[in-house]
Structure formats: structure tokens, C-alpha cells
């Protein structure tokens, strides 16, 4: 038993997400993307969302489906423009969605800062560029830095490989990407995994996200999108 809830269905896992929430969505392209949780969020109905994710959706599945359903007010991401990001493109060009572009490493670090209780930090990334316009800058030891603030989520939706019943998580290969930092940065972290294993089944040395960061877990059958589908 632990504070982490192990739930039987995706719909239970995404219950209670409120309109206007900031939702952190893991994944880099399709790797680590919590497709089932996003589908659940679409069914759940929350709207006026701010979504923080590396990309802004591919094709018409996952994040793109959420955007297409009209639930997203703003996207905070590093790279919205992909060959198959036409759902986002159309919303953006027609002025129906806001966009904040954040360099990928600053995105990861701002999420980490939220999880780590850091109030703000000086990063060299973006200094001297148009993405630093209007931001506080400072020269430290002869190098230029931009002050960046944490990005906190109300909810994080994450895909991981296995969870134990305490919510400890392990990931698989490059599907790890944003999951571990987003798990720390949200008030409520919801994780879909391929399998929930018994307490004691994960070696304590190899846990990547300790259960303290994990609120809800649901196991879903593997549903792999082909990589071709992701382009």
C-alpha cells in the first residue's frame, strides 16, 4: 500500500482534471507519449488547457487529437513545426491557439526547477536571441545569461515502462525523455505503464522516478504507433 493509486482504468486515472489546467505531457515525438491518457483526457472533457510538451502533436493522434478537439488554449513547447503537425499549424495560423516557444533545454530545466523548488535560474541558452526579448539578462563571469522561471503543472501525463505498487517507475530507452522531470513538476502526476509489478520487484538502484512523485498509475496494453506514423 502506498499513497500512489494504482487504478484499473484510464478514465479513473484522468478523473478530475479541471478546465484551465496546465497539463505537462511527456514524450518526444511518439517515444514516451502517453497516448491512452491523452485519449482519456479527451473523453474526460477538460478544456481551456495549457499544454506543455516538447512538440505540438503529430498527425491526428495523441496530442494532435487533443488539439483537434479544441481543448487547448495554449501550447508551451520547443518545436511545434513538424512535417505532420498540420492540426497545430492550422489552429495557430487561424489565431485559435497561443504558442510559447522555449528552447528544449530551457524547457527541461524550467520543469526541473519547478520540481526542485528553485525560484529562477540564469541560463546561457537563448541569450542574445529574440527568445530572450523582454527577459532579465545578466553577465556572470563574462558570459551572458537569461533569467528563466519554473514551469509548474497542475497535472502531468507520462508514459513509463513499469511501475511497482508504490509508484516507483522505470522507463525504456529514449522513451525516458521528459517523463522524470515532468513527474516532479506537477501537483498530480498520472502515469501509464505497460505493466504494474509487485513491491520489491524493482531493484532500488535502478528506479528512475521514485513513487513520491507519482500520484496515479494505470497499466494499459502496449499500443505502439509505428515510427512511420510519427513522421
Amino acid at each position, binding site marked *: 500500500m502506498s499513497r500512489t493509486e494504482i487504478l484499473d482504468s484510464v478514465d479513473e486515472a484522468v478523473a478530475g482534471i479541471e478546465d484551465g489546467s496546465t497539463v505537462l505531457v511527456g514524450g518526444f515525438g511518439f517515444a514516451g507519449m502517453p497516448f491512452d491518457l491523452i485519449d482519456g483526457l479527451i473523453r474526460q472533457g477538460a478544456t481551456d488547457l495549457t499544454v506543455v510538451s516538447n512538440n505540438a502533436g503529430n498527425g491526428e493522434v495523441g496530442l494532435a487529437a487533443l488539439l483537434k478537439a479544441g481543448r487547448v488554449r495554449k501550447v508551451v513547447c520547443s518545436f511545434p513545426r513538424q512535417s505532420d503537425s498540420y492540426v497545430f499549424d492550422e489552429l495557430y495560423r487561424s489565431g485559435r491557439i497561443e504558442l510559447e516557444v522555449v528552447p528544449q533545454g530551457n524547457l527541461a530545466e524550467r520543469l526541473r526547477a519547478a520540481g526542485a523548488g528553485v525560484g529562477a535560474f540564469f541560463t546561457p541558452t537563448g541569450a542574445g536571441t529574440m527568445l530572450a526579448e523582454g527577459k532579465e539578462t545578466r553577465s556572470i563571469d563574462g558570459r551572458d545569461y537569461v533569467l528563466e522561471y519554473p514551469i509548474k503543472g497542475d497535472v502531468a501525463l507520462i508514459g513509463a515502462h513499469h511501475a511497482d505498487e508504490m509508484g516507483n517507475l522505470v522507463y525504456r530507452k529514449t522513451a525516458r525523455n521528459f517523463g522524470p522531470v515532468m513527474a516532479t513538476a506537477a501537483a498530480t502526476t498520472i502515469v501509464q505503464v505497460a505493466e504494474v509489478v509487485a513491491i520489491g520487484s524493482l531493484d532500488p538502484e535502478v528506479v528512475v522516478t*521514485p513513487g513520491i512523485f507519482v500520484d496515479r498509475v494505470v497499466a494499459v496494453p502496449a499500443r505502439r504507433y509505428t515510427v512511420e506514423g510519427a513522421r
Partner: protein
Amino acid sequence: MPLTPHELAAVVARDIPPFSYVNLGIGQPTKVAEHLRPESGIVLHTENGMLNMGPAAVGDEVDPDLTNAGKVPVTELPGASYFHHADSFMMMRGGHLDVCVLGAFQVSAVGDLANWHTGAPDAIPAVGGAMDLAIGAKQVFVLMTLLDKQGRPKLVPACTYPVTALGCVSRVYTDHAVFDVGPGGAVVRETFGVSVDELRGWLDMPLTQP
């Protein structure tokens, strides 16, 4: 009758909600662990890099690579995890722990904490994780005697020792009474063989009752 340290540790343990993630400070707070029921699902954090720490190691269990923050050999429970120091203090600073139990030299009515430095001019300063722990849990409980060895109150209108953090303490467990502290001042929650008026006689501050 005032509580013994053992009895007081049990009172603190009773008040920690089930399934909480908890850090117990070095010294007397460590004793709270002895009163946590396994079925409570409470998970102990030690800032040197572990969650789900078990009891002190005995005999062959002793492993120099597995200690608590007081450098005492401990054990691991099923479901444990290890992590490095930056990740460990991220858990604290980021507010992920539910409860932290600390000792103190002084606590003020508004929850300022002094527990790292007596202010003695010849003392070698040493803070360890005290300041990180003080700011790093949703609730900070202090476990201390109400009076010091000279009979002076340790719950004070304002700390005279150098502070560890401001306004961080939410509750103070002492041998004579339990107090909530915070912006509204001290509130007596529970007494042990003493009346609230008697407490008012000892303490130099207004005391309210819930």
C-alpha cells in the same frame, strides 16, 4: 504529567497521516520511527539519498554503504529507491515531502525555527541539511522539550538564536503540550498534565485554544 521522550515520540507518530512521505531529523526525531505502524504505509526519506528506509541495521545487516543522515547503519524496505544528493534535496526543496520532524533550540510563535547554531561566538558553524529540511516539507513538526535545562521556554515570542528558516514550523510537540504555530500565533492543541493558564505563566506569549 509531562510526557517522556518515548511517549512524546508516540504522539508525533500518531499524528502523521497514513502514506505520508516523512523525513525524521537526527536525534530525538529519529525515535518517532519506532512508533510508526508498518500498516500506516508511511515512507521514510533520508536526505543522503534514499526513500523507504528501514530500521537501524543490526549484526550482519550492517553495510557501510547504507546509512541514514546521522551516519547510522540502516536497512532498506521493499519498494526502496536510491538517488543522488541533488535529487534528494530536490525532493525537499520542491515540497514533495509531507512531513518533516525536527529538533529545535527555539521556535517562535509565528513558526520561525532556530536549530542549527547557538550563537556562541566560539562555536564552529555547521548547518548540514537543517535549513533545507526546515523549508522543505509541506508540514514541519518540531519535537523538543518545552523548557531548556535552565527552565527557560524554548517556545518564544521571537527567536534569539540564529534562525534556520522563517515561518516554517507548523506544529510544536513538547513534553508539556502540543502547539500549532504560524501567522496567527501559538494555539494550544493538547496538554499533558498542565493547564493552559499554567502554560501562559511559563510562556511569554498569548496562547489561544482551538
